[in-house]
């Protein structure tokens, strides 16, 4: 297929140029032109108010899905413990279901996990579909895919959300292919389109340089995985829900995988890329000893520690934790820069952070130019106080 522009219709508004994720639209003499780089992704087509962007793709008919009801959440549990993201998803599901005037359901698989039902109901589930079987004790791809597929076929939900965890990112794509539906990965925003009533799924792409909003119009359920830590947990006190048992019949042979051993260990590798919160130190921290306060703050905030090249050279942190031009590029929700001057080479690696907090003695330090909130002060006083305040706000 291809995409082209009827130049006579083009008003030169540049909306398409802004929307093109591939930089493949150029304005020549006030009219849009499509360059060779175009991948025919179609992101521009609907945006054009003049209908000047044309395609030879046959418009697909959107099936009638009005009978599809219910917002479902996969309740991920490991060793009988619910993952936090499942509760976050229930929070979001309540909101979406409210707009659609539909029910929230949780899908709970495992062995002897019935007791988790109550908790799911307390966090917003109107129904809990419970599938218990020895073979479902630990997550295994084919077993979980089969059971959830059966439930989906039987109940025909409208939306199905999963956490973008290691389990969710293994299960969701497998299941989507089996059910025959589209899937959007790693969403950070979900809303219902007020006109069409469909789920608009927003996610970062190109390493966080662009946000893309994606719709799944041609299949149901509308499926998405959601980044942990983004949605808000909402308790629903006094909620009354039903637990509906699903009978499971499955053999080891069809599952085709055995877990020989499970090992829990502290993360060896640092994953600054995935970190939602980064507490970073610079020369101002003063010593390796001084880094302890930063590690403590990172721990209570649920994040990772990073730093500038100088402190790597000093040996206060290992090189995997260096952020910047010659280190890693990071995009956490919060970046706390402690005793960092904010040299351009350092900034290159952290400007994509959603919020930047800077703590520095020197009020003219360039880091303050890129900060959302700046504190001029001694980090040895500010960081421990910040640590204490967060602990007490969390009630720890």
């Amino acid at each position, binding site marked *: *297929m291809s995409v082209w522009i009827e130049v006579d219709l083009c008003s030169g508004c540049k909306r398409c140029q802004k929307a093109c994720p591939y930089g493949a639209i150029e304005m020549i003499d006030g009219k849009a032109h499509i360059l060779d780089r175009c991948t025919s992704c179609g992101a521009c087509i609907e945006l054009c108010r003049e209908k000047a962007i044309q395609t030879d793709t046959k418009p697909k008919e959107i099936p009638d899905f009005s009978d599809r009801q219910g917002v479902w959440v996969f309740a991920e549990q490991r060793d009988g413990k619910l993952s936090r993201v499942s509760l976050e998803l229930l929070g979001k599901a309540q909101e979406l279901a409210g707009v659609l005037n539909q029910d929230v359901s949780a899908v709970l698989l495992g062995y002897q996990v019935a007791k988790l039902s109550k908790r799911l109901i307390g966090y917003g589930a109107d129904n809990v579909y419970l599938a218990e079987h020895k073979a479902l004790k630990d997550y295994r791809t084919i077993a979980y895919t089969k059971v959830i597929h059966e439930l989906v076929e039987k109940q025909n939900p409208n939306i199905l959300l999963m956490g973008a965890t290691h389990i969710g990112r293994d299960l969701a794509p497998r299941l989507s292919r089996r059910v025959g539906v589209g899937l959007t990965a790693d969403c950070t925003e979900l809303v219902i389109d007020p006109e069409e009533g469909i789920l608009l799924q927003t996610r970062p792409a190109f390493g966080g340089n662009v946000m893309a909003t994606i719709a799944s119009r041609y299949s149901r359920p509308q499926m998405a995985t959601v980044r942990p830590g983004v949605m808000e947990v909402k308790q629903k006190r006094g909620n009354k829900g039903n637990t509906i048992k699903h009978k499971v019949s499955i053999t080891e042979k069809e599952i085709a995988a055995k877990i020989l051993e499970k090992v829990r260990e502290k993360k060896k590798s640092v994953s600054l890329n995935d970190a939602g919160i980064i507490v970073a130190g610079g020369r101002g921290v003063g010593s390796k000893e001084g880094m302890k306060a930063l590690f403590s703050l990172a721990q209570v905030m649920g994040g990772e520690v990073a730093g500038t090249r100088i402190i790597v050279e000093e040996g206060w942190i290992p090189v995997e934790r260096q952020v910047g031009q010659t280190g890693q590029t990071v995009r956490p929700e919060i970046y706390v820069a402690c005793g960092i001057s904010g040299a351009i080479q350092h900034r290159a690696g952290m400007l994509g952070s959603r919020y930047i907090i800077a703590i520095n003695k020197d009020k003219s330090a360039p880091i303050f130019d890129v900060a959302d909130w700046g504190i001029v002060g001694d980090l040895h006083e500010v960081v421990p106080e910040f640590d204490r305040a967060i602990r007490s706000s969390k009630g720890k």
Partner: protein
Amino acid sequence: MNIIVLVKQVPDTTDVKLDPKTGSLVREGVESIINPDDRHAIEAAVSLKEAVKGKVTAVSMGPPQAIDAISEAMGMGVDEGILLSDMAFSGADTWATSFTLGKAIEKIGNYDLILCGRQAIDGDTAQIGPQVAEYLGISQVSYVFEIEEIKKKTMVVKRRLEDGFERIQCTLPALLTVIGELNQPRYPVVSGLIDACKEKARIKVWNASDIGAQASELGLEGSLTHVVKTFAPKFKRQGEMLEGNVQEVVGDLIGKLKENRLI
């Protein structure tokens, strides 16, 4: 042992910058590279072949220039390459991509193991591996960081979890998605690269009809998800200096974080 590696050519996203004026991506001068995770998949495939004998085929779906990614894989020791290239494939979401790759793999046939990267850095979806495995109806293990043992009908691998790992035994054929921890990819050797260039014959190019697919199943048309809009993430800095004594500024900061629902 016949191994297939799925290799994607991607723009080096660490180079991708936003034009502050237009808000669109500046792609000029951005290099195309083999997706980083896929290098580890290639390395694993080639070293398995060296250990147990067999053949490695690299498969890539992309524009004509993606042939460079396959040549480079051949420089690393891959035996054969197949480039799936057709205008009809363009604009594909993961549903249509996994279908296209799945069709091609069916045509290649007779495979024991399929290796791919955990995720591609342009889309970061990590969906293709599991979707291809489902399409083919074979077992899958994702986030693999160690291949412990491989026999005729089964293999044992380690799968990384957020807080540890699992040792998993699965049946063959299987599809693994691998992460960087698995190995240290070798550099392509120049003679291998030259061979790959000279013998383009070893790289086949297949289009839609070669894999027996209809346009309606492929590319944008065959996709189930569609991009409605794209926009630059908002990084407008608040640029606010908090003043007062230590308790006051920290109290203020906590307030800001709560206001923005960050804690």
